[in-house]
């Protein structure tokens, strides 16, 4: 019944790992050919794979794991999806219903364990409920503000003694759940009037634009009003970063001009971002002269961390459509923002060419230049997946994204180990596209067993390992805040990555100095059917800048090891 439902729901791939309580389901999968199962090497990877797939395609990722350790191993991946509002359905086997509560073998109360990190969860109480419950699970996961849904399935529910008729439920109705639709017209009108009057406006787009498939409309709005655009880390790609109006992304390691523009603006129009602490710095000092318009599909995101002048609850798409329609009707002239743009261009100019110092031939490379080289080698068109740490920030800063869904990173939870399985989820479903994992040797080692899954299914992702032999971001904080005491941030006993990768049958390359970089990357990307791992030695002393000063305002930034605003 579960397998038939998944096929009818249009699920092509599920990611998982079998075990006792899930065996009836696995047997059903084995006896059909519509739903393909991908066997990972650790359940956490199954959730990240489903997550990467969902981020790249906008469709829900589906995971199948067994009870107990199978389910608890999936927890980190569920939390990752929850923090970034990624649609996901996780099917967990459970012990027989009559054994629940008796501490049976491989029993965990997974509904209880995952309660704070799911959008909702279900336990199947009767085999005949399965189609309806699964339909609700998909409906909840994908509508409104998306998120993961866990379905707990006791083993006896999948091998009933009686037969039950299966009917695919086309519709679902829940009296207690109605996803948000259009925004309040009066509020939208107010926001539009503010945008027409503002002297120093800025558009701030978030991941909600990407998830809500409304980046085109967002770009139209920005162009129509000639407003400068920034995004959150999750919103990267919502606006083309090579465009003149793009200031890059904002926040702790965001661009100098984006953070300056936010601080000095008189109107912030935020669409689909949640003003989290890494985006706002100290909320008491946040954008002191700005009125704030906040559009979000989740009412609880509005007013949670910063005060909002014009709250608009609605989908990004519907609100943007209405804004554009109002602007179309309006007789007001497009505001003249030339003074504001001049100011922004000055900020930009003051930073150009001073971001880092490139290593010359024969020197150990700067991580930033490796990312720039990858951007060039892929013509800026790749799906870029990252792990978490310095490499993640460098990738976000130096790879310029012009399209949505191409930047795939664990923004909210910051999950090291996310990258490899997420990249696999993307590549498996987009075999024609270039998928690059930019990672570090710390993160990579958290999920490197998945090299085996890549070999089994032939998933030719390209892996750029920015190897600084240390946990770079931890080390950076220790440099700045702990008087350079590098407690546990040096990674000892690194494997020989080349041998490791080759032992799975993949291709490995190594880059020690700057003069080898471009040629090696070219060779790596030329190989279409092979997973290629490029181990790039980079300067372990490099820091990520700009970096906002703790408890400061948006514009309080360290710009290098010696300069601050």
């Amino acid at each position, binding site marked *: 019944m579960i397998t038939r439902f998944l096929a009818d729901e249009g699920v092509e791939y599920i990611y998982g790992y079998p075990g006792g309580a899930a065996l009836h389901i696995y047997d059903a999968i084995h006896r059909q050919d519509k739903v393909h199962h991908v066997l990972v090497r650790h359940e956490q990877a199954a959730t990240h794979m489903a997550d990467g797939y969902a981020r790249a395609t906008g469709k829900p990722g589906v995971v199948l794991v067994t009870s107990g350790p199978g389910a608890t191993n999936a927890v980190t991946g569920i939390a990752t999806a929850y923090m970034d509002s990624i649609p996901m359905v996780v099917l967990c086997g459970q012990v027989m219903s009559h054994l629940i509560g008796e501490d049976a073998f491989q029993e965990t109360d997974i509904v209880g364990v995952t309660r704070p990190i799911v959008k*909702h969860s279900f336990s199947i109480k009767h085999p005949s409920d399965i189609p309806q419950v699964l339909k609700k699970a998909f409906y*909840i996961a994908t509508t409104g503000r998306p998120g993961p849904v866990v379905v707990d399935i006791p083993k006896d529910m999948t091998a009933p003694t009686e037969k039950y008729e299966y009917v695919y439920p086309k519709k679902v109705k*829940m*009296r*207690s759940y109605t996803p948000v639709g259009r925004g309040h017209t009066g509020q939208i009108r107010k926001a539009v009037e503010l945008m027409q009057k503002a002297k120093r406006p800025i558009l701030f787009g978030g991941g909600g634009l990407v998830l809500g498939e409304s980046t085109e409309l967002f770009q139209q709005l920005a162009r129509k009003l000639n407003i400068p655009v920034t995004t959150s880390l999750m919103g990267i790609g919502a606006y083309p970063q090579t465009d003149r109006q793009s200031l890059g992304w904002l926040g702790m390691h965001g661009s100098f001009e984006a953070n300056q523009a936010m601080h000095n603006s008189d109107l912030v129009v935020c669409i689909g971002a949640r003003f989290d602490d890494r985006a706002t710095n100290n909320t008491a000092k946040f954008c002191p002269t700005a009125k704030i318009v906040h559009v979000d599909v989740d*009412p*609880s995101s509005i*007013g*949670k961390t910063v005060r909002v002048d014009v709250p608009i609850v609605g989908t990004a798409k519907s609100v943007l459509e209405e804004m554009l329609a109002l602007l179309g009707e309006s007789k007001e002239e497009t505001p003249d923002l030339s003074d504001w743009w001049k100011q922004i261009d000055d900020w930009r100019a003051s930073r150009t060419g001073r971001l880092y110092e490139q290593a010359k031939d024969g020197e150990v490379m700067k991580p930033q230049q490796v990312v720039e080289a990858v951007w060039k080698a892929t013509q800026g068109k790749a799906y870029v997946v990252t792990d978490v740490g310095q490499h993640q920030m460098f990738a976000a800063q130096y790879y310029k994204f012009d399209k949505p869904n191409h930047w795939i990173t664990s923004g909210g939870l910051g999950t090291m180990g996310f990258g490899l399985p997420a990249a696999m989820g993307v590549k498996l479903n987009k075999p024609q596209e270039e998928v690059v994992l930019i990672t570090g040797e710390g993160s990579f080692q958290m999920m490197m067993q998945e090299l085996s899954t890549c070999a089994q299914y032939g998933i030719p992702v390209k892996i750029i390992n920015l190897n600084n032999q240390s946990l770079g971001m931890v080390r950076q904080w220790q440099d700045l805040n702990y008087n350079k005491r590098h407690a546990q941030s040096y990674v000892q006993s690194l494997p020989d990555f080349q041998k490791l990768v080759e032992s799975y049958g993949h291709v490995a390359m190594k880059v020690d100095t700057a003069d080898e970089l471009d040629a090696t990357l070219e060779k790596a990307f030329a190989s279409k059917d092979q997973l290629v791992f490029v181990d790039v030695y980079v300067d372990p002393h490099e820091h990520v800048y700009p970096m906002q000063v703790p408890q400061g305002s948006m514009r309080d930034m360290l710009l290098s090891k010696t300069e601050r605003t």
Partner: protein
Amino acid sequence: MRHIISVLMENEAGALSRVVGLFSQRNFNIETLNVAPTDDPTLSRLTVTTVGDDRVIEQITKQLNKLIDVVKLVDLTEGQHIEREMLLAKVKAVGAQRAEVKRTTEIFRGQIIDVTPSIYTIQLAGDAEKLDAFINALGSNTLLEVVRTGVSGIARGEKVLSL
């Protein structure tokens, strides 16, 4: 400020734990909590009293509304409302105390609902302040055990919380 939030939710396994979990997860405060099915057996009504400034209370109501099991809710303290709580108390009642306890109970319009030669069991309903005052009036020397139900509430006048 103290708020009384009344919630209509699906009468399903796990619904209560989601509500309670939300409060601890998001660092909200629960002062009292009570929950029981309504006249419609598919719905439960839960009443929680909590303390927080406007921003916190706004977050509490929004986050509660976000729970899939929550159908509807109202912050009763936003309007005219009636709140009631019930208390059961076991009180030492020997010698001169017996008459004194009985008199105090009558003053507070409570009832003695169980009697032994040395103990009265008292039932009293009212708002939380009245119950506090009663406990103070009895004094800790006589009080053996107290059970309180937590606050229930309903809006005054025409306002109704239903589907």
